[in-house]
């Protein structure tokens, strides 16, 4: 059981009060370079997701509360939430630096 906290309205509840929205910060290739989108890049954008062990970044919705989407950084091993942050925001700097596995280097250009 996860105990989730909404950073927008402060509601706290288990995951049935919220809606998990899957991996966060997925980048749409056509946003960055609409002319050159390879089939592989489009396939990865649509279907391929990280399966992180440890620190993971996710989208959640305060389904039975304020109805807003937000971001969360969670450890998939300990189930501990490391941080909650806005839906238009990047993870806290120290968590971007800590990102490992499939997330390693994902925020490289944001840390400059």
């Amino acid at each position, binding site marked *: 059981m996860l105990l989730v906290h909404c950073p*927008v*309205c402060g509601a706290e509840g288990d995951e049935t009060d919220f809606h998990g929205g899957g991996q966060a910060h997925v980048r749409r290739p056509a946003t960055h370079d609409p002319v050159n989108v390879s089939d592989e890049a489009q396939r990865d954008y649509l279907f391929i997701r990280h399966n992180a062990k440890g620190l993971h970044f996710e989208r959640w919705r305060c389904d039975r*509360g*304020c109805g807003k989407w937000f971001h969360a950084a969670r450890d998939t091993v300990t189930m501990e939430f490391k941080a909650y942050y806005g839906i238009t925001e990047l993870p806290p700097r120290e968590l971007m630096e800590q990102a490992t596995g499939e997330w390693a280097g994902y925020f490289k250009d944001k840390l400059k």
Partner: protein
Amino acid sequence: MPDLYVESPLAHRNSPERLSIYLREIKDRGMVDLRGIASDKKFMAAAKKVLGLDLPKTPHSSVSWGDVKALWLSIDQWLILCPRAKAAELAAALTAELGVIHSLAVDVSDMRAVLRLEGEGVREVLLKGSSLDLLSGDYKPGAVRRMHYAEIAALLHVVEDTVFDLYVFRSYADYAWEFLLATAREASKIKLFGKQAGPF
């Protein structure tokens, strides 16, 4: 405009019998869904001009002025309560006053059914369908909370310490009513073990 005709979604349901609390439907409540940007001063001022109150910005709170009440639903959404006969007029007045301001006011009086629960032990009855800690200090009179109740979406409004209004979408009214008839039975009243800290 033809005369207002309101058909309750609970018109033909079983009436409460041998319950530990007092349960009834509130049929004459008008509801207006108001959306807008809380940080937009023009929006807040226009809403105040029509409603006579400052829309609450504090999550899970409510404000009232005369027979109008504003329940906080989200950072950009409020449910305005008023007498049923006044709802259409109020929504129209809001729309007119808000003009080109990025906002929306809609009469949603038929969207939800309102169940009034009253009496000692009302919190314990609601606990049977909820994961919220209704005995905590978060649920003082005036508190508003959208919630997961008996596996459906609901809105809870603490009117007084032992008086709660439960709003459910109209199509679920029947289900919520039957759920309450079963869980609020006198015979199924629950007692909390040991001494509990009071809600306040």
